[in-house]
Structures are given as C-alpha cells and as structure tokens.
C-alpha cells in the first residue's frame, strides 16, 4: 500500500504546483535511437503548438512550459521518464508516444498518478484501455487494419496476400490480426505469415518463403526501419509485388533506406502535407517556417493537435487539476485540428479519417482519404 499512497501524494504536489506562473506540460518521446524519426517529428509539432499558444497569451493567464524526456527508443525507459515528469517536474498532463508499445509502458504511471496522458499517435486499442486518464488523438488499429484490408481487395485487386509482422511489437501484432480477420472475411487468402523481431536486419529467409508462396501483395505492419529493409531485400530477391503497411511506415528515413525499391508501395497514415484542406495549408507553412523548411509528417500534425486538444480542455475545465482536466478531455467534441475533427469517444479514442499514401518515383504522394 505504500507505493500508491506515495503516488497519490505526488499527485497532490502536482496540484500544488498550480500556484506557479507556468503550466507545465510533460512530453516523453523517442528523440534518439531506432525510431528517432517518430519522436523528432511529433516533438517539433508539440513545440510549434506551444510557441503559438504562448505568443497568443498562453492559457488561463499563464504560459505553457514544455518539459520533455527522451526514451531513446528503448523498452523500459518510458515508464521512468513518465515517473520523473510527474513526480519531479509536476506536469499537469503527459504527451506521448507515437509508438504503442512505449505508450503502454508509461500509461499505468499516468493512470496511477491521475495525470491525463494524451498519446498523439499510439494506435493499438490497448493503450487507452489502461485507464480513464489515457486518451489519444488518432484513429485505432481496428480501423486502420480495415482500411488497408479494403484497400488491398479493392485497389490492389489482391486475392492472395502474405503478412510479415514483428513478434516483439504490440502495434505490429495488433494491426496484423485485424488485417487478417478483415481480409479473410472479405474472401481473401493469407498464403504466408512470417515473423521477425524488433531490430532484425536480415529478412531474406522470410522473403524467399513469401516469394515461393506466389502472392499478389505483402502486408508489412511494422515500423519504418524494418519496412524499408524488408522491401529493399524483397526487390533484391526479385519479389516485385506491391508492399503496403500502416502509419508505422511514416518517416523520411523510410525512403532514405528503402530508395527506389519502395516504388509502387502504399501505406495508411493520419495526415498528408499535400492535403488541400485550408487548415493543412496554413499548418504546413507555419511548420516549414519554424523548422527550416522541414515538411511536416503525420506525427508532427498529431503532436500539434494533441497540444491544442489539451489546451482546449484546460480552457473548458478552467483549471489544471488532474480529475477536472480528465473530465474536460473526455468531453472533447468536434475539435477542429489539422488532422481533421477530433471527438473523444467513450473509449477515449478519436475517430478520424485515414490517409493513404502512394510511393512513386522515390517520393511519397497523397493517394486518397478514407472516412471512418
């Protein structure tokens, strides 16, 4: 019983921190390491939103202050970072993470301390099931898996598909499962199912087996480092069918590592800078100005939206008290952001459209948007 009471005590301290002149927002992200691309882009979006809000006078008469921690893409670091942010820095809310696995590590800490956590892009359903203080501003994998299964049947005209997923990654397994169910439900066949582990570099064995299975397309629900190497090695082996994946592919490193091998591949994500919606245009211009011409990716936009959703809730709650802020977040309805309208549902998830990106001529291009 000692530990929970200690955590409650730190929550009380967090409430006491209100007397200070800034509102502290905590962020934990993979700023370095294997998935640094995820952390860096969402971090840039978060900073841009906070700068804008402070320039406009802050919230509740106070400025926002961002306190961030790098989890180095390592398992185990996110919970430590969340504990530090909550107990030492006394943040009023946590923003994090892009990856579901690491969000799942920090979520119990935030839940126990009764500090709301908003995951910008963790799509595994389990993340918000941790407790009623955990939210997200993106769609979830059952939706994404459905979109990609439909896409495979309708656009790629694929009847026989192979699935290559990572056994040590919650996101990959969850997305693969939904995809398989929907795709076989629609009459498709999964002819080969192969696995690998996070950090693997050699996929030739699995791909050789996939090649012999003679499939129309290959679904790879993994993160960009593995996806890029997989497609590259597949092309080396003479496997020319289209590969497609989920939002884990979203990073410029994908094209840097994969190069021309990725032509003719597709992935689903949350946002495209080429979207013609006026809100997107203004956001892209502001983002490029702030970050020296860098084009915002989906996680930049979601990090940006996460801060605005949080600020909107703080305004409605009129306080930064954890419980009241939680209630205000849960009541978020039709909030207009750059990734579309955010409505937090009963499961504390957001339902949003998915964007499909096509890779052509070594570049990503907007393919289409699928409504929820």
């Amino acid at each position, binding site marked *: 019983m000692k530990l929970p009471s200690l955590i409650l005590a730190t929550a009380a301290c967090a409430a006491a921190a209100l007397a200070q002149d800034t509102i502290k927002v905590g962020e934990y992200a993979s700023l370095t390491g294997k998935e640094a691309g995820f952390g860096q882009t969402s971090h840039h979006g978060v900073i841009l939103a906070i700068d804008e809000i402070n320039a406009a006078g802050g919230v509740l008469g106070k400025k926002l202050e961002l306190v961030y921690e790098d989890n180095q893409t390592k398992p185990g670091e996110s919970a430590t970072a969340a504990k530090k942010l909550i107990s030492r820095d006394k943040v009023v809310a946590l923003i994090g993470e892009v990856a579901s696995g690491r969000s799942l590590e920090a979520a119990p800490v935030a839940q126990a301390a009764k500090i709301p956590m908003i995951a910008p892009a963790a799509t595994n359903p389990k993340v918000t099931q941790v407790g009623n203080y955990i939210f997200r501003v993106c769609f979830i994998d059952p939706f994404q898996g459905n979109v990609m299964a439909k896409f495979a049947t309708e656009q790629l005209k694929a009847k026989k598909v192979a699935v290559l997923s990572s056994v040590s990654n919650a996101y990959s397994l969850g997305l693969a499962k939904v995809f398989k169910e929907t795709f076989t439900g629609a009459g498709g066949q999964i002819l080969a199912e*192969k*696995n690998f582990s996070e950090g693997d570099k*050699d996929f*030739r*064995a*699995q791909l050789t087996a996939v090649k012999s299975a003679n499939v129309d397309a290959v679904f790879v629900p993994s993160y960009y480092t593995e996806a890029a190497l997989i497609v590259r090695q597949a092309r*080396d082996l003479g496997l020319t069918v289209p590969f497609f994946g989920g939002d884990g592919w979203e990073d410029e*490193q994908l094209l840097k590592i994969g190069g021309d091998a990725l032509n003719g591949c597709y992935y689903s994500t949350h946002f495209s800078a080429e979207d013609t919606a006026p809100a997107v245009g203004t956001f892209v211009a502001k983002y490029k100005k702030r970050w020296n011409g860098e084009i915002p990716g989906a996680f930049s936009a979601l990090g940006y939206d996460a801060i605005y959703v949080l600020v909107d809730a703080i305004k409605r709650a009129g306080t930064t008290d954890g419980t009241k802020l939680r209630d205000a977040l849960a009541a978020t309805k039709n909030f207009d952001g750059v990734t579309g309208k955010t409505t937090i549902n009963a499961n504390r998830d957001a339902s949003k459209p998915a964007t499909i990106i096509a890779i052509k001529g070594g570049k990503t291009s907007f393919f289409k948007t699928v409504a929820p």
Partner: protein
Amino acid sequence: MAEFLQQLLNGLSLGAIYALIALGYTMVYGVLRFINFAHSDVFMVGAFIGYYAGKLVPEGTIWGGLLVLAIAMAGCAILGMTIERLAYRPLRGAATLNVLITAIGVSLLLEYSGQVFFGAAPRTFPAVFPSANFSVGGLVISSNQIVVIVVATLLMIALEFIVHRTKIGTAMRAVSLNPKAAQLVGINNDVVISFTFGLGSALAAAGGILYALNYPSIEPLMGVMPGLKAFVAAVLGGIGNIPGAALGGLILGVVETFVNGSQWSTYKDAIAFAILIAILLFRPAGLLGKFTVEKV
C-alpha cells in the same frame, strides 16, 4: 528446390559475415585465453569508418568499394591495437576475470561514445560496391551476396596463409601453444599479441562493411546481436580454432536462415541456440575443438 537453394545462398552470405567476426574472437582467445567482448563494437566502428569513407569515393565502383574496405580495415586494426595497448596490456598476468570485465567496459565505452559521436539515430550506408541482381534458373543472386562470399573467402584464405606460412603466424601459434616457452626462444609476446588484435579487428571491420552493404542501416548498437551470434559461432566451432570459427559461422547463418523461412520463424533464435546447446552437450570442445593440433 529453387527455394532451398535460395535459402542456402541467403544463409551462406549471412554465415560468412558471422564467420569473419567469429575469427577475431577465436584468435584473441587463442593467444590470450579471454573473450574480447569489445570485438563486436570494433565491428560497428568499422561500419562507421566505411560510412564516412564511402562519402569520399564515387558510389558503385569496385575500386571505391575496395578502398573503403581497406580504409576501414586499417582504421580498425589501429583501434584494436590501441585498445589492447591501453586496456589489456596493463592487465597482463592478472586474473582472467579482471581482463574479461575490462573487455565489457571497453565494449560499453565504444557503444556509448559511438552514440555521442555518431548519434543514436540509424544512418543509411552508401552503396559503395556496384549492385545488380542476377537470375539463374529460379535463383536470384544479388551482387552484394557475391561480394560478401568472395571477400570473406579471400580474407579467410589470406588468414590461413598468414597463420601457417609466415614468420609472425608461426610466432602466433607458438604463443598460443605456450607463451612462456615462446618467450624463451626469443619471441616478443607483446608484438605477437598486438598483431593478433590488429588482424582480428581488421577482419571485424571487413565484416562490418559487408554487413552494412547487405543491411544498409547502421547505428552504434548494431554490433550487439551479430557479435553475440559470432561469439556463439566461435564456441560452436571450438573456440581458439580458426577453421572452427569459420565453420561455426556458416552453420549458424544457414540454420538461422532456414528456421526463419519455415513456419517456426518466431522461434529462430531459440532454435539456433538450442542447436548450440545440443552440440556442446555432445562435443564440449566444439565441432573442431579436439581434432586440431595447433591452436591460434
């Protein structure tokens, strides 16, 4: 059948890299009777030297690729000899455990200084050798696989020549057999040990470049897993035995690839290591551990 041959080829090219790294472990064990855990990080440094050198030469030329390979091997040979001089030589004569722990320390030092100097984010290794794919029957052979197998084979032949046909090689075998007696007949043990580290590190650098060519995403912790596998390969073949290390590397690469291509791909590392345990149960000295007269 085509699939079987393709998997065999995939396995051999992976195994050739494991073999190159395993040789460094086994040579150092031969002369000093300790496991140089920093070896897998010398492999990483080799890949990074190749990354920077690769930017200076035109991409996709054979001479450029060979030049990058030579620069990385020379750089790592110097690094290996420096590590030996600064960290291991002062401990000569101390208990093996002390040296072993120092080796782990050097390994962590290299990994985390790598994160400071190179950054923790993965980088894309340049395509320094020309690349093309050849189709033979149902078999697809990539030029990188050919480069790996050819370079690894040539280096192993060169190593075999150095160890058995040169004066310094004879000295290495003498030190390995009995260091005190070697000293008595006028061999400078320090020079021989330093040379062994340089040679092993150069092979690790070659392994690093070949690995990065095949899997072109490099980062400071990239040596950990291949290093562990290569260590296992060295033990599998009989640690201290040069042909054993090469054989162990090839076996491990091929087994791993075949398991990966089967429906048990989830268990690939478990199966590879179970085979290791089984072999060690029946042959505690490793596959070739008992048959050889000389240990280097």
